């Protein structure tokens, strides 16, 4: 894992709004970080690897948690 990616995970929950915003705008592969930080997983098993569905699940999770306001 790239050191910068690890550093972002190390920021903890404070990084979540920024990560979700990047996921919304750039579709970055933030799924490991989101799960590692939140210890939650809104992606249903059947959608593993389906990037658009994973992205939508995490963005919806962020809205539910009130984290979509960076």
């Amino acid at each position, binding site marked *: 894992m790239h050191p910068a990616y690890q550093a972002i995970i190390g920021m903890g929950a404070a990084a979540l709004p920024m990560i979700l915003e990047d996921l919304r705008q750039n579709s970055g592969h933030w799924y490991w970080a989101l*799960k590692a930080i939140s210890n939650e*997983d809104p992606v249903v098993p059947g959608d593993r690897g*389906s*990037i*658009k569905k994973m992205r939508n699940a995490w963005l919806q999770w962020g809205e539910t948690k009130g984290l979509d306001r960076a």
Partner: protein
Amino acid sequence: MKFDDLVRAMQPKFPQLTAANSRPTSPYDEGYNCIAWAADDTDRWWEPDPLFQQYWPPSVPREYTLDAFVRAYGLQGYIERCNATVEMGKQKVAIYTASSGKPTHAARQLPDGWWARKLGREIDIEHEFEALDGPMYGTVAVILARPAKQHSMSGK
């Protein structure tokens, strides 16, 4: 960016790559990676990540080992170990590993003998077998074959 320019930009990573030994097939698609593409799956990202975020065949150990990757492709019918020679009636995939033994990449042979691969986040290309050898992806650790299905020349 023109393909020739892209090739030039990638030559530091792939010194043997030229516009003569490769050709573009499709633009970057974030929906799948090289491992999935070699397995003919353009709907999912295949990766044995320990956090269970990406797709990995459920019966295969979720680990970055050559054995796990061989087993994953085995479920797609790629069972016979072979070489890179074109063989009528056979479709082949090549699994690359780093010097550590960790799988890094996969490519699929096309009926014309070129190899199709998704090239990182850049583009999908087809190329001659040795065109991308080098430090970026390591070396081919194993080539596996299965009976050929009806298959387009584009690799899709």
